[in-house]
């Protein structure tokens, strides 16, 4: 908030107060007969304006200040009366907004924000009703002759007299309803709130309670004829009216005291705290023990806690409501704070700014821890995948080639005994069966060996190996390979990814075509295996997880795009020196 604007607002406040005081004291136009000019409300509104200015000065980012100030101005204007139709009309139209502003203030205090849908709906309804009922009241207020006591206005339509009473009744009912709703919401919020919100709302709730009781008492006392007592009680109402902006301003400024805590925080952070101590220090500075701190990992587009665990920040509703504030440094996102929504946004920003250097350091630490945890997890998975692969090979050997060779040995012994018996024909038949079993065993061993490590990959490189892979696949595969010989680990990883992705296409995708693209640029191999199948691959399944581990083990990046329609696309980017 620029000082010039603040000074301008202060001058405007003084001017309006003086004009209103003069108007009320000496204007005397259309005052109902027998009414004494009363400067009390003028001074009460001056208090509102002053409190609004104070709140704006100290808490420039909070909407409560402007609301208090506006309410002071609007109510001050509504106190004046004019002979000319134009100012009189303006005053009448502006006056209708006093009640919606009160509602807005109660509902938005102390954060200045409307956070729930019912809150926004109530405030919008209040402003909407004022915008409609204000002009409608003027239109229907009847002619000057019908209503000599009515102030002149530009919207008056002759002949609509009488309807004004109905509009006025509707307006009165709506005022009671929206005020009651605002107070009920505030009390409910106070009952649920903890920490800063509860501390700020307490006095507001007390004042609202006394104010309501006073209003009811005044009405009841007037009804039973105790007019003097009623006037006396009404004076209490006047005091309450003055007290309200003070309570709002004090409630708002109390968080100002916490700025001392920001200074303490800066000192604490000088000791270079780790992530847990950092969170505790921030929680102390905000006066909110429930504060959570999530560090942003820009490469992985996710948050982690200080010890590297995944962190999903979500604003909570209900009894333990929370708000999210993103902490940035030089336009770069560092972390997110999950905190009590009642804490002033400016204070959160101040704490975030004070802690941003320490948060940047702690984030690096958290990123390292997260990376280490991921490396450990992937190392375990790679070892497990290796063990599983060895078990599979043992089973394949045992169930396949070994069984066939055992059968062959039995067959040879059988043939031998037949030959010894002189039964040449039977021996020949058995040898024929044995030969077929040997052929099967050889083919099985060949396939198994190729699955472990295809010799063509070692001898001729990735291109010919992928051609052979595509040639064996039952689905037509288009190849586009633009790569010479690459380091063995890179070739093996690319081949493994392509082979596994191809196997998945054959098994799951129900694709009619697939393609494999390999391209080398700027020291990075890009491998893409895409199909036109049904998509919806299980990205977190063991197979694709294993591919990711394998690619990341050679410092590569792995991605699977598998929408519900449009096929699956497996991509790997592997640095190749």
């Amino acid at each position: 908030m620029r000082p010039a604007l603040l000074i301008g607002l202060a001058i405007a406040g003084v001017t309006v107060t003086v004009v209103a005081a003069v108007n009320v004291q000496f204007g005397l136009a259309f005052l109902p007969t027998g009414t004494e000019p009363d400067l009390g409300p003028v001074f009460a509104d001056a208090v509102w304006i002053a409190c609004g200015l104070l709140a704006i000065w100290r808490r420039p980012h909070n909407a409560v200040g402007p609301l208090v100030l506006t309410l002071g101005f609007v109510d001050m204007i509504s106190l004046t009366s004019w002979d000319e139709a134009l100012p009189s009309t303006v005053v009448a139209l502006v006056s209708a907004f006093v009640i919606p502003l009160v509602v807005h203030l109660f509902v938005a205090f102390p954060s200045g924000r409307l956070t729930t849908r019912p809150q926004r709906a109530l405030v919008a309804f209040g402003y909407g009703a004022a915008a409609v009922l204000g002009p409608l009241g003027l239109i229907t207020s009847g002619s000057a002759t019908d209503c000599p006591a009515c102030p002149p206005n530009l919207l008056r339509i002759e002949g609509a007299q009488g309807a004004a009473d109905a509009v006025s009744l509707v307006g009165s009912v709506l005022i009671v309803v929206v005020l009651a709703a605002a107070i009920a919401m505030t009390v409910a919020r106070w009952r649920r709130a903890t920490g800063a919100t509860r501390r700020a709302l307490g006095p507001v709730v007390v004042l609202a309670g006394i104010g309501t009781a006073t209003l009811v008492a005044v009405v009841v006392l007037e009804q039973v004829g105790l007019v003097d007592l009623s006037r006396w009680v009404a004076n209490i109402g006047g005091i309450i009216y003055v007290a309200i902006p003070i309570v709002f301003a004090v409630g708002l400024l109390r968080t100002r005291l916490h700025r001392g805590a920001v200074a303490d925080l800066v000192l604490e952070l000088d000791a270079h705290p780790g992530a847990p101590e950092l969170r505790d220090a921030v929680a102390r500075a905000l006066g909110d023990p429930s504060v959570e701190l999530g560090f942003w990992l820009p490469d992985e587009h996710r948050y982690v806690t200080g010890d590297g665990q995944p962190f999903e920040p979500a604003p909570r509703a209900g009894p333990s409501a929370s708000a999210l504030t993103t902490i940035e440094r030089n336009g770069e996102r560092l972390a997110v704070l999950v905190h009590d929504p009642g804490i002033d946004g400016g204070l959160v920003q101040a704490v975030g700014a004070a802690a941003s250097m320490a948060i940047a350091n702690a984030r690096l630490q958290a990123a390292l821890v997260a990376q280490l945890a991921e490396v450990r997890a992937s190392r375990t998975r790679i070892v497990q995948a290796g063990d599983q692969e060895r078990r599979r090979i043992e089973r394949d050997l045992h169930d396949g080639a070994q069984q066939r060779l055992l059968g062959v040995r039995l067959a040879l012994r059988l043939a031998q005994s037949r030959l010894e018996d002189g039964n040449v024909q039977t021996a020949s038949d058995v040898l024929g069966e044995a030969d077929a079993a040997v052929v099967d065993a050889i083919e099985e061993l060949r396939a198994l060996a190729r699955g472990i490590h295809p010799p063509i990959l070692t001898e001729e490189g990735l291109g010919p190996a992928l051609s052979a892979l595509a040639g064996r696949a039952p689905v037509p595969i288009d190849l586009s390979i633009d790569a010479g010989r690459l380091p063995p680990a890179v070739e093996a990883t690319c081949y493994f990814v392509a082979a596994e992705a191809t196997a998945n296409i054959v098994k799951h995708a129900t694709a009619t075509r697939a393609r494999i693209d390999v391209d080398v640029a700027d020291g990075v191999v890009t491998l893409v295996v895409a199909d036109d199948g049904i998509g919806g691959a299980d990205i977190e399944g063991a197979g694709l997880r294993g591919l990711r581990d394998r690619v990341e083990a050679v410092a590569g990046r792995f991605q699977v795009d598998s929408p519900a329609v449009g096929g699956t696309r497996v991509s790997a980017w592997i640095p190749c020196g």
Partner: protein
Amino acid sequence: MWEANCGADVRDVTDEFGPPRCHDPRVTLTVLIVDDHAGFRHFARGLLEATGLSVVGEAEDGRSALDAVAALRPGVVLLDVMLPDFDGFAVADRLAELPQPPTVVLTSSRDPRDFGERLARSTARGFIRKDDLSGAALERLVAAG
């Protein structure tokens, strides 16, 4: 004492030694082969029958082996240790609980030492490595009991 599980084709043999008993040299062994590899079953049947044994049936897993024993009442069950459902040791234990249990001979392509103590503790009569299988080896084991 007549034992039906010695096989149907010896019921009529009676001489001065009285009715034949199980494992009597005059009695042909009746064998059920239990193995999940069809190729092995095929060649094993050929080899055993060439030696004069009677292969009365084949089964491919533990459950069908139990059913086949109940239906065919073989004298000997040649039982693969590694089956798709139960393992051979469990099948052997179930067979040993029958009122008139068949003689169970375990077999595997693995070395018997790979099974450690389980083989010694097993209710089976013995173990023949698959590549050592012959009618004579099976008869020797059965007779040794």
